[in-house]
C-alpha cells in the first residue's frame, strides 16, 4: 500500500469510528462527577483492615497483589528477553569484563563531572531508599524507588566511567537480585498457603496506622519488588550501555530522576 492510501484508510476508519466514540464519551459519567463503587469501598475499609495510609500500595500489594506479581514477572520477562537478545549477538563470554573498542582512546572526564556525580549518586540512592521504605505511608513504593536506585547506579557510570561501573556492578549479581526479588514476592504468596491461609493473605502483624512499619506482609512484598526492579533496571541500563561504547560521553541523563 502506498503511504497515501494507508493514511486514507486510516482516516476513513477514523471517520467511521467517530459516531461510536462520540456516543461512548457522551455515555460516560462527566469528568470528575463520581468514582466507581469498588474504589470507594477500598478507601472506606482498607485503612482499618490493613493499617496503611497509602491506598494505592494497599491495592498493589494486598487487595490486588496478584496483579503486581504478574507485573513483576512481566518486567522479569522483558529484561530476560533484552539480555538474551543483546547478548545472543555479543556472545556471553565477555559480558563480565569491560572490553574496549579498538582504536578508541579513554576520554578523561572533567573533575567537575566526577565530583557532581559522586555527590549526586549517593543522594539519589538515599532518595530511592526513602521512596522504597515509605511505600505504605506516602506516595511511592518498591517500583518507583527501584527505578530511582537504578538511576543512582547509572550516575556511577557517569562519574567513574565504564570500567568503574563494570567493577561496581556485576551482571550475575543483578540476575540474582532480580530473580531473588521476584522469588521473594512469589514466596510471599506461597508462604501463607503453608500456614493454611489463602495465597498472599496478609498473615503478619499489621503494625500501627501511619507508621513506617505498617501493612504486615506488604512490607516484604514491597522489598521484593524493590530488589527485583533495582536489579532489573540496572541490568537493562547495563546491557544498553554495552551497545554504545563507541560513544564519547552520554549527555546529561539521570538528573530528572531525582
Amino acid at each position, binding site marked *: *500500500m502506498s*503511504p497515501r492510501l*494507508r*493514511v486514507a*484508510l486510516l482516516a476513513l*476508519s*477514523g471517520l*467511521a*469510528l467517530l459516531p*461510536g*466514540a462520540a*456516543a*461512548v464519551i*457522551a*455515555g*460516560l*459519567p462527566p469528568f470528575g462527577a463520581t468514582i*466507581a*463503587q*469498588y474504589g470507594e*469501598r*477500598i478507601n472506606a475499609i482498607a485503612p482499618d483492615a490493613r493499617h496503611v495510609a497509602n491506598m494505592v500500595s494497599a491495592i498493589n500489594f494486598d*487487595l*490486588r*497483589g*496478584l*496483579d503486581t506479581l*504478574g507485573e513483576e*514477572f*512481566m518486567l*522479569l*520477562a*522483558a529484561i*530476560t*528477553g*533484552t*539480555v*538474551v*537478545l543483546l547478548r*545472543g*549477538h555479543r556472545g556471553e563470554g565477555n559480558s563480565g569484563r569491560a572490553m574496549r573498542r579498538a582504536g578508541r582512546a579513554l576520554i578523561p572526564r572533567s573533575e567537575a563531572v566526577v565530583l557532581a556525580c559522586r555527590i549526586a549518586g549517593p543522594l539519589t540512592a538515599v532518595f530511592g531508599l526513602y521512596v522504597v521504605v515509605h511505600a505504605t505511608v506516602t506516595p511511592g513504593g518498591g517500583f518507583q524507588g527501584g527505578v530511582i536506585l537504578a538511576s543512582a547506579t547509572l550516575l556511577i557510570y557517569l562519574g567513574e566511567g565504564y570500567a568503574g561501573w563494570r567493577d561496581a556492578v556485576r551482571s*550475575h549479581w543483578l*540476575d*540474582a537480585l*532480580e*530473580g*531473588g526479588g*521476584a*522469588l521473594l514476592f*512469589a*514466596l510471599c*504468596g*506461597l508462604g501463607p*498457603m503453608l500456614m493454611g*491461609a*489463602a*495465597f*498472599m*493473605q*496478609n498473615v503478619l502483624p499489621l503494625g500501627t496506622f501511619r507508621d513506617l512499619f505498617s501493612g504486615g506482609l506488604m512490607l516484604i512484598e514491597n522489598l521484593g519488588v524493590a530488589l527485583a526492579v533495582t536489579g532489573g533496571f540496572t541490568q537493562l541500563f547495563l546491557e544498553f550501555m554495552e551497545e554504545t561504547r563507541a560513544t564519547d560521553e552520554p549527555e546529561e541523563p539521570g538528573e530528572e530522576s531525582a
Partner: protein
Amino acid sequence: MTASAAALLPLPVAIPLVVCAAMLATAHLLPGRLPDILATLAALAVAVLCAVIARHAAEHPLVYWFGGWEPHDGVHLGIGFSVDEASGWVAAFIGLLYAVTFVFAWGFFGRTHGHFHILMLLFLAAMVGFCFTRDMFNLFVWFEVMSVAAFALTAYHLEESALSGAINFTVINSLAGFLMLGGIGLIYARTGTLDFEGIAAAVARSGRDPVVAGAFCLVAAALMIKGAIVPFQFWLADAHAVAPSPVSVIFSGSMVSLGLFGLAKLSAVVFGGSDQLRHALPLLLTALGGGTALLGGWMALLQRHLKRMLAFSTISHAGIMLTGIGALSADGTGGMLVYLVGHGLVKGALFMVAGILLATRASIDEIALRGLGRGIGPAGIAMALAGLLLCGLPIGVLDQGTRLVQGALAQQGRGMALAAGAIGAALTGAAVLRAAGRIFLGLGPDPGDEAGAPSADEREKANRPLWLMLAPCCVLLALDVALPADLIEHAVPRAASAFLHRPAVAALAEGPAWLPWTSLTAALAGAGYGLFRRRLPALVVRPVSVTQSAPTRALEVLHSGLIGDYAAWLAVGVAVIAVVLGLA
C-alpha cells in the same frame, strides 16, 4: 473434597513462576541440562495439577479468592480465580503441550543459562492465569505477560527477518494491549467492578448502553488481534514464520487459540447479558470467522516457506474456531473448545516436523527440500497424517470439534460460515499434503504460484537425535487420534454449559457426516493438482492458473510486512466491529 481442590488453584500459576525466578537468581550456577529438566518437570506438574482441578470442577466451578478477600455484601474486593471444567482441561492441555515442547527442544536453548526456559515458563504461567482468572484487569496482566514473553522468544534467531517479524508482532500486540486496557477502563467506569460476575450482573441490568458496547468492541478487538482474525491477522504470519520451531509450536498450538478462548469466555459470561451484543455477535463473529478461514486457507496454499504455510493454516483454523464462538450456543462453544485442543495437538506436531526439517535438512523451503525428506520417513508419515487430520479425516479430537462446530452452524442455518470453514480446512490440508508429497516423496517438480511466495534461508541447530524430536511429535498426534471419543462426548455438553454459565444440555448436535469427507476429498484433489499439474491436461490447468493468479498477487501485496499497513488495517478492523455493534 472440593474445598481442598479449590486450594490448588494458585499452584499451576505459582509453580512455574517460582521455578523461573529461582532459575534466574541462580542462573550462572546452573549446570548444563538442569534447566531442561526443571522446566519439563514444572510443565508436567502444571498439567497434572490442572487435570486434577478440572476433574474436581466437573460438579460446579471452583472459586478461589487471593489474599482471602472474599466478596463482601456483593462487592468483589480482591482478585478471584474461577475454574470450570472446560477451563481446567484447556489449561491441562497447555501444560502438556509445554512439557512435550520442552522435550522436543531438549538442549536447543543450551547456550543462554536457562534464559529461554525462564521465558517459556513465564509464558506458561501467564497462559494458565489467563484461563483461570475471573477478573478483568488480571486477565489483562496475564495477556501482557504472555505477550512480553512471546516478543522476546520470537526474535531468538536474531536474523534480519526474525527481528523485523518480531517488531511487527510486538507493535501490533502492544496496540492490542492498549485497546484492551481502554475497554477495561470503560467497563470499570460503567459497572464499578472488575470481577466477571459483577460486570455480568451490571451489564444485564444496563440495557442498551453505548459504553458497554464500546468496551466490548475494544476488548474484542484486542482478543481478535491475539487470535489472528481478519483483518488483524497480519502479524501472525510474520511472527510464526520466523520464531524458533519449539516457540512456534506454543504460538500456534496455544497462544492464538487462547485469544479466542478469552473472547468466548468474555462474550458468553461477561457481556452475555447485553441484548445489543447478543444480536450483533452471531453475524459479526461468523462473518469474520468465515472470511478468516477462507483467506488463511488460500494463503496457506500459496506458500513455500513451510512455517509460514503453517502460520496461515493456523489463521484459517482460528477462523473456524471463531465461527464456533459465533453460534453463541453450547454446541458451538463446546465444539470450539474441543477444536482448540485438537488443533493444538495437530498443529504442534506439524511445527515439530518443520523443526525436524530445519535441524536435519537445514532448510524450511518446500521447493528446495523436494525429495530431501526421503531419509526421515517417519516424519513424513507424521506430516501426512497431520495434514489429513487438519482437513477433516474423521478420527480424533480435531474431527470431533469440527463436527460439533459444524453441527452448531448447521442448526442455526449459517450455511456460508459452514461452507467457508469446510473449504478453509480443505485448503490448509491441501497445502500441508502437497508439501509432504513434495518433500518426502519428491513429487511435484513443477511448482505453481507458490514458487513466487516469500522465503528465507533458515536452519536450526542439529544437536539432538532424530528420535528425540520425533517422539514428542508422535505423542501429540497419538493423543489427538487416540483420546477416547465417548469420554469427550460425555464431558463436553456438561463442560460447555458450565463454561457458558447456562443450564446443562443433554447432548450436542453434530454436523452432517459427509462434510468432513468432502473436505478431505477436496484437500486430496488440491494437493494432487499442486503435485501433478504437469501431467494434467492443459484444459484443466490453464483456467485454474488464470483465475487464481490475480487474486493471489493481490493477497501477497496485502501481506506486505509493513507495520504501517498493519496499523491501518487494525483501525479498519476496530471500525468494522464498532459499526456492526452500533447498527445492532
